[in-house]
């Protein structure tokens, strides 16, 4: 297999302010400046429910997309995020509200119609619709152009936590989250580090860098997390060899599979964050190579992969091509039983 290590080098200078990016606030933090009546809201809700029910399992059969049961749950969450008062409008049916009484909402009723249409008819991911993703105990802002962090990826924070418990030195050191996207991993890790622990989060995409910075601010972590725009290790050159940990969820889907992806992913999420080249492993291999010089002796790495095949290949790659550089390299499976991660330590 011929592997291309070349990745488009960023044309932006390192950590240039992404001024052109327009940030979209998550729905649930927008001010409740719109008013409607209970009866109009109920009408919308009925409409949305019937649109949702008509989906049945067609998306599921088509491309493993959501069925109507899942969509109905998302609809409840949309209501939860959109309504200021009365919060209990759907949860407490025994309270009889006057149909003409006013409801404060965070998007206009027209927007709510449009948003739900987009969700069902265009298969726009729910997380883009409400502008946020609940991930671990965080609520992260996401928008088009940024990969929606996946539930599987949550486990990387647990893996880091386990590594830190084994070796407390890691708690106070310098970490990197490469291709940070929404900043999920960087934020998750920053919150378990000690007072002098720091994370540098990099991403080639200016949208991702801007969204990650926004999320870092939301969690008051500007002191701990530095977001830098640029390709992989490029923005980190100053700190070569100083990192106690590297994590990444790089693009790993083989190019040929991109066309057949679930509509929510293939049509709406950024290809830059998904496409890992012909084998899907271009970036993963780039990361394994780079980790040798970036990590301090004893430093920890955890990378997410496409599953069993890639994980096996990478463990073998490290053990043969990077012989002697790493120790305790292993695969770790996600909750679906797929070998989703490879982890290991830089040899001492």
């Amino acid at each position, binding site marked *: 297999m011929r592997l291309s290590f070349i990745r488009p080098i960023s044309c932006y200078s390192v950590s240039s302010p992404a001024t052109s990016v327009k940030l979209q606030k998550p729905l649930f933090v927008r001010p409740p400046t719109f008013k409607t009546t209970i009866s109009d809201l109920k009408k919308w809700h009925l409409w949305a429910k019937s649109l949702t029910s008509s989906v049945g399992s067609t998306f599921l059969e088509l491309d*493993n997309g*959501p069925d109507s*049961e*899942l969509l109905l*749950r*998302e609809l409840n*969450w949309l209501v939860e995020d959109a309504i200021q008062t009365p919060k209990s409008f759907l949860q*407490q049916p*025994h309270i009889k509200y006057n149909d003409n009484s006013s409801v404060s909402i965070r998007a206009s009723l027209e927007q709510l119609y449009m948003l739900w249409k987009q969700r069902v008819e265009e298969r726009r*991911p*729910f*997380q883009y619709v409400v502008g946020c993703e*609940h*991930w*671990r*105990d*965080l609520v992260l802002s996401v928008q088009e152009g940024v*990969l*929606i962090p*996946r*539930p*599987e990826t*949550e486990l990387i924070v647990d893996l880091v936590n386990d590594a830190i418990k084994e070796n407390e030195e890691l708690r106070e050191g310098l970490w990197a989250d490469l291709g940070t996207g929404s900043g999920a991993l960087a934020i998750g890790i920053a919150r378990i580090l000690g007072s002098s622990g720091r994370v540098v989060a990099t991403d080639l995409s200016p949208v991702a860098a801007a969204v990650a910075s926004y999320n870092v601010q939301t969690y008051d972590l500007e002191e701990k997390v530095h977001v830098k725009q640029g390709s992989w290790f490029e923005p980190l050159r100053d700190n070569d060899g100083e990192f106690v940990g590297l994590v990444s*969820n790089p*693009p*790993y*889907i083989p190019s040929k*599979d991109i066309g057949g*992806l*679930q509509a*929510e*992913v293939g049509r709406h*999420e950024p290809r830059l*964050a*998904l496409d890992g080249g012909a084998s899907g492993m271009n970036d993963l291999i780039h990361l394994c190579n780079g980790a040798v010089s970036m990590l301090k002796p004893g430093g920890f790495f955890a990378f*997410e*992969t*496409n*599953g069993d095949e890639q994980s096996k290949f990478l463990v073998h790659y490290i053990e043969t091509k990077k012989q002697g550089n790493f120790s305790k390299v292993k695969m770790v499976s*996600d*909750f*679906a*039983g*797929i070998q*989703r991660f490879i982890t290991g330590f830089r040899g001492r």
Partner: protein
Amino acid sequence: MSFLILGRRSTQLSRIPRKLLLFSSTFSSQSPNTSISNNRSTIFHSSYSSSNIRNKGFSSIFKGSTKNPSGSLWGVRFLSLEAAVEPTTADGLTVEGIIAKNWNILDDSEDDWKSHASSIAQSVHLIKKRLKWKRLMYRLEVLSAQLNKADLWDDPVHAGKISREHGSLMNKVEDVMAIEQELVEHIDMIKLAREENDPELESESVKALLGIRRNVKEKELEALLSGEHDNCSCFIEVQAGAGGTESMDWASMVMQMYKLWAQRKGYGVSVVDEMPGEIAGIKRATIKVDGENAFGYAKSEVGVHRLVRISPFDSAKRRHTSFVAVAVIPILGDGSTHVQINESDLRIERFRSGGAGGQSVNTTESAVRITHIPTGITASCQNERSQHSNKASAMAVLQSRLDQLEMARQAQMNAQHTQSLTEISWGNQIRTYVLHPYRMVKDLRTNYEVSDPDSVLEGDLDDFILSFLSTSLDKDEE
């Protein structure tokens, strides 16, 4: 189908290896014992004064010893209740004596001290019955004896448990005794006032008695919830019985009834787990009910609930009978001993994990199921918006189920309960709801019934719950 599950569950329960049931060491230094209050000492006059002094000494010593549980301090005598003299008036009238006088109990707006006194004495009698007074005093003696053992702190976990239970029982006993003491004192005071011809003093004491009378009425209710875990929050689980869509619909009606009941009581309600039926209703669901005494009330609902109606799912409009099983599990507080769960005994799986996962899939479905391998007990949560939160919720359910299992096992060991595990977790048929041919809800344990099923299904359950609690506690002891 569901009852099959129940059966399997119960056999699994009985096979728990002993080693899994070890308690974790959660003894907290904030033992309730330290709260044996000094402020209450103001009401311990006259005949209680000797024990009062000991009590003060005891609590201050206890504070010291929680910081340094070295054992030797525990040699100090605990308040011995046998030594406490029964409160009597100057002319020898006891609380039981007041009841025996059979004074008329008038409405509490009447300024009649005998009526107040009689009402208070009756309430005290009822409270003692509800607290299972004799058994309580015996238990307290046993605990005091254990606390006095010099080697108690060789096992700090056990010691913590003993002293916590002792403290909590002690509080209850002191509460009641304080009322009795106040009662006889005010009677003395009234008699004295009459002798001295001091109407102001007399009316003050009558007023005070009225205050006690009202206060002790509330305590009657509180005494209904005097079980060890009654004050805890809880999970309520509902499971549809055999009978397909009809009973799944019934299950969702029952779940809705509890949600509405809990909301009326001002409890926090959240759905933890819900498995919808194919056509309508739910196969099973778990909700978390958050608030003071949630378990104490909800435990009355454990059992099978039966519905009789014309099924809306039967095109021939025939009458159907369906069943739903309800389980209630207390969520033990931080001060309680939890069963230690070993990470390596858990299997955590994702629900509906089809396909490649990872970047290839975008889904808001992040439910997990946790299996405790040694017991086979599972818990799942799918209603949170992140996998992390779903896992945390499922772990909380699992912890509570294992805790309940351990409590049931210990109760059996103590031979206090003869109920089988199945009865504890799911119970027998307790209530019938008839919507056709007539309309009625009847509790089979208390025979309490109402003719308005709609209000019950809208969560108006308190009368059923209180009548069950009082019937089960007020029947004559032993």
